[in-house]
């Protein structure tokens, strides 16, 4: 469903991605690990179409279409979801308004009518509960004054509502307490099915005990330098990244 081929990308004219290739098929879970600053978040931003992140070479195909040609909102409506490493605060716009606007936009794109208020409310309350956030979070400004962990749960809540085809979770496990980690994992696992794929960016092998990946990749210097199965994560946990970087040179 997602083919990234030899992707080069720069931010403010600085080259960050240097020939990244990745193939994700429906139903798969890919974990991406790698040192700080290696380009993991950049990959997510380029895929989401963030202004200022420019693909300079290579190609990205998503569900048979050229992803890089699409507007950000169109990518989302086609089923791409990015859970931000640093979710944005939007004071004055309630979580509820935000969720409804997002869901309606996506439903409209699929030719479905907007959910009526009652069904939407029920759905919103259910997912809010599923990620263990109090109902009051629906009324609060989007991420406004949320703790780090609450922001991450809010991202998962959005994912559960929008039911994307491909979800990229950028360090959604960072800063979470043990219970919250379970919540995130349950959220992902509940959505796992043969049609849906996940890219899970993480620094910690621990998350992968709960969300068991089909593949583990190591990103360094803006490209994938090693891929393996879940045992690679264990090996990294033990040995760090040094040996790989040496190997890659």
């Amino acid at each position: 469903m997602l083919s990234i081929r030899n992707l080069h990308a720069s931010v403010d004219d600085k080259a960050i991605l240097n020939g990244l290739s990745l193939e994700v098929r429906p139903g798969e879970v890919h974990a991406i690990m790698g040192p700080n600053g290696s380009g993991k978040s950049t990959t997510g931003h380029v895929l989401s179409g963030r202004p200022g992140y420019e693909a300079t070479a290579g190609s990205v195909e998503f569900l048979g279409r050229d992803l890089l040609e699409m507007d950000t909102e169109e990518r989302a409506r086609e089923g791409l979801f990015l859970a931000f490493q640093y979710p944005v605060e939007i004071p004055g716009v309630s979580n509820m308004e935000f969720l409804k606007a997002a869901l309606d936009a996506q439903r409209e794109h699929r030719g479905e009518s907007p959910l009526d208020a009652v069904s939407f409310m029920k759905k919103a309350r259910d997912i809010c509960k599923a990620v263990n956030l109090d109902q009051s979070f629906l009324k609060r400004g989007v991420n406004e004054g949320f703790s780090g962990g609450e922001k991450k749960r809010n991202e998962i809540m959005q994912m559960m509502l929008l039911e994307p085809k491909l979800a990229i979770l950028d360090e959604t496990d960072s800063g979470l307490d043990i219970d919250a980690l379970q919540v995130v994992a349950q959220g992902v696992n509940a959505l796992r099915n043969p049609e849906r794929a996940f890219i899970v960016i993480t620094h910690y092998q621990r998350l992968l005990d709960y969300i068991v990946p089909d593949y583990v990749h190591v990103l360094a210097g803006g490209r994938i330098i090693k891929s393996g199965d879940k045992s690679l994560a264990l090996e990294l946990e033990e040995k760090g990244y040094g040996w790989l970087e040496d190997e890659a040179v």
Partner: protein
Amino acid sequence: MTQVLQQLTGIRPQSSGWLHSLNEAGAAVVRNAVWPTRKTEQWKYTSLRALEQMDYLGARGQIPDDLTGMAKLCSVDNLDTYKIVFVNGSYCAALSSVESLEANVDLVTFADADTQQIVRIRESLGSVVESDQHLFAAVNNQLLDDGVFLRVGKNVQLKKPVQVVWLTSGSEIPFHIPQRFLMVLEANASASAVEHFISDGESQACFTHGVTEIRLADGARCNHYRLHLEAPGALHVGGVYAALDANSRFDSFHLALGGALKRIDVVVNHNGPGADCVLNGVYLPRENQQVDYHTCIEHRVPHCTTQETFRGIVADSAKAVFNGRIHIHPDAQKTLARLSNKNLLLSDKAEVDTKPELEIYADDVQCAHGATVAKLDANALHYFRTRGVSQREAEVMLSFGFINELIDKLAQPALVHYLRPVLTQWFARDPSLVRHLLDAQEQV
């Protein structure tokens, strides 16, 4: 001398009764006044041209025969108020309702005041506003023939908010409205008041010169809302002048849609130690409209606080002026004052002139002020779009959020509810872009 001043000099006092001396005093100030131009510091950014272009002062407005639809315009859903309605500047009994008022409370028009009430009005009327400093307050003094008086006696907590509506309705000939509201809360009294300015149509040719005076005695508490929702052609030059005695609290919210001329002065005097003032405001000019807020907080005594936040969104080729002065006198030790003014410009032709002025003559005070002009946050816009929301809807929702932070805080939920559709209408000429702002409110 300009035409307007000349014309004023020729106008004889309107009222023969007890307001006569105030009319004369106003006329005396006007006689010696200089018409403000762009060279006048207080009027540097706002032109009075719209006022000069038509003969507003030549006539008073009439109450139309047909009042259909007006009752609805004057009411706020789920807000039960003591209501006094003026239509085109004249008191309209048919639309007003002041029933079962508490004991020891006066709520009456000047014209209907009894002997004792007249004594009370005369005690306070003109005691807060310095009409030699504010030309249009003097104009108001000169032309005044009616007004609204609210007095809440010692220790009385007014159950329902007072709502004073100034409704304008289309008229063939231009006219003027002398708007006046005098509110006196005695010691430890409390009351809410809504000053509600609206129009029943798009085209209006009227000029309101207004003065609202608010006196809070020791320990009194007042929630005050001033909503300028009139049509763009309805000119307004007016002000709110408040005097705060010891340990009183004044919570005042202002909202103004734009117009050909809209200038509001808000002056708050901290006269007794321990007084608190929260002053919030939102202004929203668009097309070729303007809005000008001049606020001035006088900290004359120690231990008072001021929290002032004004936000504006300026669209199209509209223009906003915000001038926020906080004056801390030498005796006003332990003052705590904060002033913030944030502006959002939605177009390259939109303009804002913002100037916070802090004048501090006491040394042991905490003060902060800031003024910013910004565009929409690019990260927030992107965040919306990654969820599938279109750029245009995201822009509208974000702009709305920017002012909704202040609206949501209003102590009267019914007003939040009332203002939301008014504001969403302002934001989008395309209703599909605001549907989620309206929807969500129904659900919560």
